[in-house]
């Protein structure tokens, strides 16, 4: 329990220090990544595949820097405008749950990789940037991991994550589009929530 509180304290401190730096998207990505990885590196439970613990970590450290409304809009393309504000909120919530659950798993596979941060080349004053990083793994080619960020009223927020050229968001576009065309916006909400329930039930 004591460990949990010191972790929580650590998280709060590092999130606030990350927030202080949010004028630069590169610095934000680097800070959040390093904070998360330093925790994973020390946490045997997470390395052992403790899903609940990873999700807590991601909730606390990573999610504040993501814009899930924008992510969901990007995943749905034109169909996004068919949703009313209430549906939009539910879509974004379900999509968030799905992405967190899915990719938190990837963190439990983290071993001795290191990160490399590429300098961002962006015109000054641009409100939309891509921050490029690379996962360096022993015995393999570096895996590119890019983040698209947009600047809003509350600072820089990630709205897309691109692994080796594959956008984790737009990869859903045709599945989501088809579902909305076949069963409407509520059909997509149901599809997402069914999937989340299934993942929830399947985890140990």
């Amino acid at each position: 329990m004591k460990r949990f509180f010191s972790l929580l304290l650590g998280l709060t401190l590092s999130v606030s220090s990350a927030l202080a730096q949010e004028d630069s998207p590169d610095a934000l990505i680097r800070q959040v990544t390093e904070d998360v990885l330093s925790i994973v590196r020390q946490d045997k439970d997470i390395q052992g595949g403790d899903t609940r613990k990873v999700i807590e970590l991601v909730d606390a450290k990573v999610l504040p820097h993501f814009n899930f409304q924008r992510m969901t809009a990007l995943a749905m393309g034109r169909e996004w405008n068919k949703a009313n504000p209430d549906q939009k909120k539910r879509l974004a919530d379900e999509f968030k749950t799905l992405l967190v659950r899915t990719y938190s798993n990837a963190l439990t596979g983290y071993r001795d990789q290191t990160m490399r941060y590429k300098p961002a080349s962006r015109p000054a004053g641009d409100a939309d940037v891509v921050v490029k990083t690379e996962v360096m793994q022993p015995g393999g080619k570096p895996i590119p991991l890019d983040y698209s960020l947009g600047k809003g009223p509350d600072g820089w927020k990630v709205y897309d994550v691109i692994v080796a050229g594959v956008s984790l968001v737009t990869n859903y576009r045709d599945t989501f589009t088809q579902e909305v065309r076949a069963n409407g916006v509520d059909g997509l909400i149901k599809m997402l929530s069914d999937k989340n329930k299934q993942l929830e039930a399947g985890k140990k």
Partner: protein
Amino acid sequence: MKRRIAKLCIAAFALFATAMSLVGCASTANDPRDPFEGFNRAMFSVNEGIDVVVKPVAEGYDALVPGLVKTGVGNFFGNIADPWIAVNNLLQGKIAEGASDVGRVLVNSTLGIVGLIDVASDLGLEKHAEDFGQTLGKWGVGEGYYLYWPLIGPRNVRDTLGFAVDVSVDPILRAHDVSARNTLNGVRFIDTRASLLPVDKVIEAAAFDKYNYIRNAYFQMRRNAVHDGSPPPLDDDDDEDEDKEK
């Protein structure tokens, strides 16, 4: 060896053509890039079936073999692949990258003890991933339709041609000693499969329809690879042009 590959290709195409005529009409295609979806999904199931056997072997390999050995195995096959990667970089006009790949082979084959240790990466000569499909893409050859092959999995038409060329120059498949060739090829296959295990887990959780998810990811990944990480934006990726279409 070349004759064997040629025969294999002909057999594969014959199989493909036959299967195509069988399932062609029953195709459930709804992606213009994938008119043979019915056939492709059938092959996808075949591969999923094969993987029932292959995956446990890869998992066993991953669990039992010490990390250092796995890294050595990965480095060894990486080194064998590097000369062809160098050629492809040069064919694409990327002289610096190609020269760096040549440097990698020289350093790793000697100081790196037949490629087991990737000394070159530590010296700043970074590992690249190039193949003939990417070279064709760089030369302006279009992607072509999406195909799902038994064993080798997703390839568009361009990458299928590229793969045929890659295979024809593959040093391991050209090895004269049959048992060495089979052993090396087998270990490489399992090593590759093992390296994909973490991806598996993510796709399993993320995908509503695994076939569909892999197809989308494949097209994005190859497009990115051809453009070396900076693909031009897609028109239909633009979520701000809703009103252009009816």
